[in-house]
């Protein structure tokens, strides 16, 4: 799955490289900047994968946590071992969280790498108009990856909870992915504006703040608080469900 994620920046970079110059302002954000600065491959790839591809992979990983073991029958042996239900749940969530951290990082680093290989690399002009050096730009790139990792923690907690509800891993995965899409659709409807700040996907694309000088942490903090809330609520639900669940698979 990480390979599939790594393929995105590579596809973008190669596509831009072999085609003629991209007209400014068309295609995904920052796509037109790639030919001038390879580091933007990483940024573009992250922008492209936020709405669907990252949630998809996170949904697969988080949905598989408990339901996958149940479907395979190994859950009963882990519990009889005894792994301990709380311990198992925590380790499974830690695994999903690790994936959430690594996934955007892979996109960013592979993007920066392939960009550096195919395009010139140099100082980066930020959204605020300031220019920063390559090293500073890499730090910003990693910050965006960290922002996305935090953004997806809530979704992975939702996936963990759904995974405790069923013995069919594919069902849990699909339900998690569908929820992430539904949340984004709701977020796009202006009639539901009152709901928007509560949607776990609300801040997903707000990492533009990290591309300004001076750095603004406002959206990072708001996002972190929201995601922590989701982790707490759905973590508690998953705990409540799993601790009393009859394991019959």
């Amino acid at each position, binding site marked *: 799955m990480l390979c599939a994620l790594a393929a995105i920046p590579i596809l973008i970079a190669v596509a831009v490289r072999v085609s003629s110059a991209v007209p400014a302002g068309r295609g995904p954000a920052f796509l037109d900047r790639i030919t001038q600065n390879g580091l933007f491959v990483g940024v573009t790839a992250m922008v492209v994968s936020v709405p669907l591809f990252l949630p998809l992979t996170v949904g697969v990983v988080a949905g598989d946590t408990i339901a996958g073991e149940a479907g*395979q029958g190994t859950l*009963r*042996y882990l519990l009889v071992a005894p792994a301990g239900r709380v311990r198992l749940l925590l380790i499974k969530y830690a695994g999903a969280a690790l994936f959430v951290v690594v996934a955007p990082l892979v996109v960013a680093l592979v993007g920066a790498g392939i960009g550096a290989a195919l395009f010139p690399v140099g100082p980066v002009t930020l959204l605020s108009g300031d220019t920063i050096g390559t090293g500073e730009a890499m730090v910003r790139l990693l910050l965006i990856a960290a922002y996305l990792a935090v953004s997806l923690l809530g979704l992975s907690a939702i996936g963990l909870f759904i995974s405790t509800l069923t013995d069919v891993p594919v069902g849990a995965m699909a339900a998690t992915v569908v929820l992430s899409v539904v949340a984004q659709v709701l977020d796009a409807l202006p009639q539901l504006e009152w709901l928007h700040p509560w949607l776990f996907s609300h801040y997903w694309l707000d990492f533009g703040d990290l591309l300004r000088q001076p750095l603004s942490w406002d959206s990072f903090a708001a996002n972190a608080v929201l995601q922590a809330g989701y982790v707490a609520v759905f973590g508690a639900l998953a705990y409540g469900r799993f601790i009393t669940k009859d*394991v019959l698979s």
Partner: protein
Amino acid sequence: MSAAGPAAELRTELSIETRGLTKRFGHQLAVDDVDLAVPKGAVFGFLGPNGSGKTTTIRLLLGLASATGGSMRVLGEEMPGKLNGVLPRVGALVEGPAFYPFLSGSANLHRMDAADPYGQAATRRARVQSALDRVGLTHAADKKVRAYSLGMKQRLGIANALLAPRDLLVLDEPTNGLDPQGTREVRSLVRSLAADGATVFVSSHLLAEVEQICTHAAIMSAGRLVAQGTLAELRRAGQARIRVLTPDPGTAAQVLAGLGLAATVSPDGAASAGPDAVLFAPLPAPAAAPAPAARETAGAVDAGQQAVEPEAVVAALVAAGVRVRGFATEQVSLEDRFVALTGEGFDVVQ
């Protein structure tokens, strides 16, 4: 038939003890008021037709599912309260083996052992090795489980139960999918485990197997425990019969009828008797408890029969000039007892 009589009460130390154990799924009672008593050190056969609640009972005992009612003690500890203290001392094979197909056999065991907080990492390699050795899988230890046959997976499942020294082994259908050699090995394995002092709780529907290895047994039917005790006790509850080998079946049948015994001539070829016929007749037990019908060939049972001593039967036969070439009294097999308690054919009570 009372499940746990007063005899079962704490005279011996019990490895598993349940009181009124009940599990309800919706409207269906999967386990209904079960009082199990498994003595320490016993090889306990847990019998019952498919769907009679054996596996559900095992899930309750292992804390995989929570009981609707009743209480359990496993290895002397209250369950499921002391679950995490008890389970490391219990090895289990529940409803068939399950492994990660993309990992090798030994990697699977390593992973399962790592899940046990008491499984010491330092001794893990040696313990995995010896468990694989014990089930004869050393040669396939590095093969992916995907490539294992059903019997090999079954062995690996048993190996998983043997990863650490256990006081109690719960084996659900351990010989399922095994070839005759594997079945024999499992039997000797169970015996050796029992010889080491472990209690072995084997669920099975293979009665011959249970008869060979078990010291005690319990029979489940439709969620209820219908019989429990030592094998001898279970058999005694059934009715004995006599078997007469003679070339004069007609006269013999008359003599037996005179004694109040309903004789049936076994169908040709059923017994290797050459020119001789084989007669069966149910022998009323001295303290005639009305017992259910035994085998079909044994015919109907007359509950009002007088007690007849087997030697008196032989004497009567000989006195009547019947050439008796063979005579035996036979205990009912566990199978007869099982069928009598759980019903005939496929219309098993649900």
